[in-house]
């Protein structure tokens, strides 16, 4: 493997004709947009920003970063980039595990997929070859059964299976791709784009290959520097010592609960009180944790594998109980039963659905039920009714009954019910587990995210929760958040394009990213280049969205966050000062409201 050749091995696959071509990415694109997220967005732009997401013309791009598959710490990532059927924006989602690395080891940097197959197919990839094969036998099956099917057929050794489930096949707008049973391209409905193309799975068989560049002293030095930071006991990434490693992402539950940034009952309240403990990372670690699996090249091991030992789902063995679904299907739905949450996360893994969007759809429906806004024949859903939630999740994936409505996502479903105000969504995608009244910067991040409501585009919570020494910010202050959000968005746009795990930013920064990318690229690349490139990628996405119809006034939060005061915790009495923050933000971005002006495009050499 030669890192300096990244982008040369892009396979273009037309599912309508079965034609496949190896075409290198234009060098200019790789130079300007790096790989993974950035390069994928540049490809998707080629299909035109007004393309119908579920049409055969939409591109479905699976793209590695230049570091994917190398021994770089936390590099076991790749990106799925397409136009989202949920938001109508460009979207990118990232997956951990081993699949991206195996794609590289099999000889490919990315798959650019267009068209639509007449019948269900899967891609089989091995040793520089890609074949389209019949997937009729697994169409309709859950992801767990699909993975088992391919393991039976091809053997378990060196095999990765990335598949859609029934939710993708029925075009649920928040369907996901899931690999190796439980690592997902979770957000934005990329699984529905696969379903619309009759593409069931990508099966890759490839053993580990070492990068030749790792023989260089320069590479060893920069890799060691980054790894030392990850292992530093002062950082939450420190293996077996840092909070992220010991408790996983759910180490956050008690913190956001305490500061009043944990939405409860569809964000009607801002803290779960004493009940948060029962769904926290500490509780999981003490009661149901059985293992700490990890992704390729990651010493952190933030995944938390559990076994349910009591109740109706006794015996369930699954990974991973994460903070986001523990909130979306837990506190957000007034549910403090961690066993039921494990069950529902496993349903999402098997049916192929985004649990954040799902939890928001359920909580919206619960509020509509409580308010009496449903038709008489609709039974509705009570807060915290876990068995009914489990049943409804299955119905959503199959689009049975009211499941058909909720498969459209909370924003469309609430609109249909005549109450769009109870969808906690931005640009059609639901928000995540950080209430904007208790973490003001996260609210601005949701509103200005290029893929709809999203906590990861600008994970400014790292500053607001005090994780990054020297970059701390008061979570309840709004001043300065415009610039802070821009910095985080640009930095993450770059790291998502390398493609390193988001959590690397808890131990690394632009300097470390630049050092590693310099060696991979074979020429000097500075920390300033990291930030400038990240800015270009963020603006490219915004340019796409502007062309897709997202113009002035499109960066918004649900009124609940700007008009209804926080009820509990440290943020009690606060609302989001979104208008003020947007003013700051647009100024530092150099945008005219939500729109990138021509001079900014020229300055950044977009597209």
């Amino acid at each position: 493997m030669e890192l300096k050749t990244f982008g040369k091995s892009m396979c273009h696959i037309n599912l309508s004709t079965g034609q496949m071509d190896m075409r290198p990415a234009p060098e200019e694109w790789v130079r300007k947009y790096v790989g993974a997220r950035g390069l994928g967005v540049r490809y998707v732009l080629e299909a035109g920003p007004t393309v119908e997401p579920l049409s055969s013309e939409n591109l479905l791009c699976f793209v590695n970063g230049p570091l994917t598959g190398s021994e770089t710490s936390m590099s076991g990532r790749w990106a799925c980039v397409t136009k989202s059927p949920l938001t109508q924006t460009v979207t990118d989602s990232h997956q951990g595990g081993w699949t991206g690395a195996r794609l590289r080891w099999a000889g490919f940097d990315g798959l650019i997929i267009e068209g639509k197959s007449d019948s269900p197919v899967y891609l089989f990839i091995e040793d520089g070859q890609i074949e389209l094969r019949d997937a009729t036998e697994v169409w309709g099956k859950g992801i767990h059964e699909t993975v088992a099917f391919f393991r039976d057929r091809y053997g378990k050794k060196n095999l990765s299976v990335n598949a859609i489930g029934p939710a993708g096949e029925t075009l649920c707008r928040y369907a996901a791709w899931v690999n190796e049973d439980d690592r997902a391209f979770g957000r934005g409905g990329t699984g529905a784009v696969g379903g619309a193309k009759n593409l069931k799975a990508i099966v890759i068989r490839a053993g580990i290959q070492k990068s030749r560049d790792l023989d260089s002293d320069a590479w060893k030095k920069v890799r060691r520097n980054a790894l030392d930071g990850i292992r530093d006991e002062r950082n939450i990434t420190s293996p077996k010592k840092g909070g992220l490693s010991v408790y996983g992402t759910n180490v956050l539950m008690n913190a956001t609960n305490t500061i009043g940034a944990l939405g409860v009952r569809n964000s009607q309240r801002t803290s779960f009180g004493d009940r948060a403990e029962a769904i926290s990372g500490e509780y999981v670690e003490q009661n149901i944790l059985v293992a700490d699996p990890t992704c390729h090249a990651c010493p952190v091991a933030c995944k938390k594998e559990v076994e349910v030992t009591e109740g109706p789902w006794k015996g369930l063995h699954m990974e991973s109980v994460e903070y986001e679904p523990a909130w979306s299907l837990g506190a957000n739905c007034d549910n403090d039963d961690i066993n039921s949450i494990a069950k529902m996360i496993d349903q999402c893994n098997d049916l192929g659905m985004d649990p954040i969007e799902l939890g928001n759809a359920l909580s919206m429906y619960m509020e509509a039920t409580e308010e009496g806004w449903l038709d008489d024949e609709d039974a509705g859903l009570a807060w915290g009714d876990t068995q009914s939630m489990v049943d409804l999740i299955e119905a959503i994936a199959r689009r049975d009954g009211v499941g058909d409505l909720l498969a459209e996502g909370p924003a469309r479903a609430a609109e249909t019910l005549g109450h769009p105000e109870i969808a906690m969504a931005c640009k059609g995608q639901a928000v995540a587990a950080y209430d904007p009244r208790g973490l003001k910067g996260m609210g601005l991040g949701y509103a200005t995210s290029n893929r709809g409501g999203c906590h990861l585009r600008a994970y400014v919570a790292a500053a607001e929760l005090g994780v990054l020494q020297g970059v701390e910010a008061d979570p309840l202050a709004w001043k300065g958040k415009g610039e802070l959000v821009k910095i985080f968005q640009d930095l993450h746009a770059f790291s998502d394009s390398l493609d390193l795990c988001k959590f690397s930013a808890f131990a690394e920064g632009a300097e470390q990213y630049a050092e590693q990318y310099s060696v991979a690229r074979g020429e000097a690349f500075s920390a300033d280049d990291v930030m400038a490139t990240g800015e270009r990628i963020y603006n490219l996405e915004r340019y796409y969205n502007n062309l897709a119809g997202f113009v002035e006034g499109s960066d918004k939060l649900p009124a609940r966050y700007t008009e209804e005061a926080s009820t509990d915790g440290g943020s009690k009495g606060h609302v989001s000062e979104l208008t003020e923050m947007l003013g700051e933000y647009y100024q530092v971005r150099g945008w005219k409201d939500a729109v990138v002006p021509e001079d900014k495009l020229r300055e950044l050499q977009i597209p």
Partner: protein
Amino acid sequence: MLVNFHATLRAIVGEKTVDLAIPEGSCAIELARHVAERWPALADQLLDDEGEISGRVQLMIGGRNVRWLPDGSATRIAAGDVIDIFPPTAGG
């Protein structure tokens, strides 16, 4: 005074909530020093080289990190205040 410990700090203290014998009206830094004295394994995380509250923990009174309160580590703890101490937490 009831103090809640979280995540890796709880693993050292051994329980979630501890009743500490600290005089009413004590301030946040006095609480931090008391905790550091009782659990020396926490001292490095709680206090910096100057003996002030370290940036590596969030000592919260009523859900607010004292760092962001007007009196900072000198903030007085009133009867009934809920006290929480967190190590750095993030994820998502």
